[in-house]
């Protein structure tokens, strides 16, 4: 298996009390899969992502990627953060070039690679702009371009569209779906938005809190081209609503 999480456990101390954020979590992910970690706050989905990315350590259990234990972050596995993490003193082009600077590349080459991914995320013409001049959606596009530019094998996304308005969010979802299929990356995507998960994922890992654990894993049998209004999509979405016990039992006649 490409990514293997085995019996992962982790606790935090919150106000003197132990909170189990990950309780014996095991999960396998295949290369090229788009997996959404879905659940309410406190279910450990972000912690699991941070552990996979190498930012946090487990208390017990193991995380292996491509056979090797994860001990630290690596440019092979890029994380996209909710608040973008762009360097405000650099313009768009320089931000996208950031990850290329530790490589032995000619100046023109760096520029060419950066330009390619700026074009890919649809920001052509904004190269010289500074991040604070851009909208939230555009800033997240810059951060996606910066991530793709170093050609990582895996992209971790930690509620990347959580701070965006609904329309912008849907646009970015469309684009990330296209990019993930086109660039053939493995993507692990944390969200608490059920529709977002159903729209993007090959598999949805449904998580629960107290203690943080995996409740079930749902395969999404939708193709590469997804439609938010199609019957199939609504069916998948409903299934997940049911898992969270969020679907009202059909007593609607009662109120008529």
């Amino acid at each position: 298996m490409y990514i293997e999480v085995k019996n992962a456990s982790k606790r935090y101390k919150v106000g003197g009390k132990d909170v189990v954020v990950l309780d014996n979590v095991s999960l396998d992910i295949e290369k090229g899969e788009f997996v959404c970690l879905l659940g309410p706050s406190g279910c450990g989905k972000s912690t699991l992502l941070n552990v996979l990315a190498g930012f946090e350590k487990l208390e017990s259990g193991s995380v292996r990627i491509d056979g090797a234990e994860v001990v630290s972050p690596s440019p092979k596995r890029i994380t996209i953060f909710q608040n973008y993490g762009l360097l405000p003193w650099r313009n768009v082009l320089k931000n996208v070039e950031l990850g290329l600077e530790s490589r032995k590349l000619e100046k023109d080459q760096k520029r060419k690679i950066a330009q390619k991914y700026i074009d890919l995320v649809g920001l052509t013409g904004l190269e010289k702009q500074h991040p604070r001049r851009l909208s939230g959606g555009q800033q997240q596009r810059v951060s996606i371009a910066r991530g793709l530019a170093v050609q990582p094998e895996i992209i971790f996304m930690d509620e990347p569209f959580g701070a965006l308005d609904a329309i912008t969010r849907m646009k970015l979802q469309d684009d990330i779906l296209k990019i993930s299929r086109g660039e053939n990356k493995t993507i692990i995507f944390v969200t608490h938005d059920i529709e977002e998960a159903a729209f993007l994922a090959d598999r949805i890992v449904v998580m629960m809190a107290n203690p943080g654990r995996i409740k079930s894993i749902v395969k999404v049998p939708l193709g590469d081209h997804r439609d938010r209004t199609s019957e199939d999509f609504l069916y998948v979405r409903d299934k997940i609503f049911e898992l969270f016990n969020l679907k009202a039992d059909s007593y609607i006649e009662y109120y008529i």
Partner: protein
Amino acid sequence: MIRKLSPIKNCVISVALVILAWQILFQVSDYEAALFPSPKMAFDALVEMFKNGTLLEHIKTSMYRFLVGYLSAVAVAVVLGLILGRLPKVFQYINPAVQLLRPISPTAWMPFIVLLFGIGDMPAIVIIFIAAFFPVLLSTVSAVGNVDPIYLKVSQNYGITQPALTWKVIFPAAFPQIANGIHLALGTAWIFLVAGEMVGAQSGLGYAIIDARNNIRADILLATILVIGVIGILLDGILRLIEKQIFKAWGGEN
């Protein structure tokens, strides 16, 4: 245009008010004119100093000492601050000593400094260095501590290691707060230049004041004070302009 002119108008009115008050005091007071001269006399003294070349000579000497002391203090304090800011465990042992030294007026060191360095450029430079060093050091350390952790996470993710981490990420991220300290230190350093030259030098603007007192030339004394004030304002203005340019390159508005 009107907006740009109104501060100049305010300045002119403000200065005119000071001169007017000065003139009135001169008229009503019983002091001898040699002890409390009129604005006109001070202005004549200024022209005299300018014409015989002493003024420019003093300004040149003072500016040299100021720039050497101030710039070296900023450079050392920023570099040291960038290092200590990343080593909070080390800084917790250094901070108490810094806090002990910081409130001591740099002039208190004066006799000691004169004993060690003699009379000349050095005492003034050392005093300015001490005056500028602590505000810049402390603001740099705290600025580095306040750098948003996400920048460090991103750097780690993209494999940016030292020394690139410091000059590509930490320094620019901390720069706005460091600039605050650098600006604050400018005013303090300029104030202590005069103090340093009054005791430890035979030239410069501070010395010119002592010299004027010794010759009972209150007109020259006041003229020198005015020059010190004007240069202080100019230095502040120049630094403001430099800051503006840097922040522009930084992509910010203010």
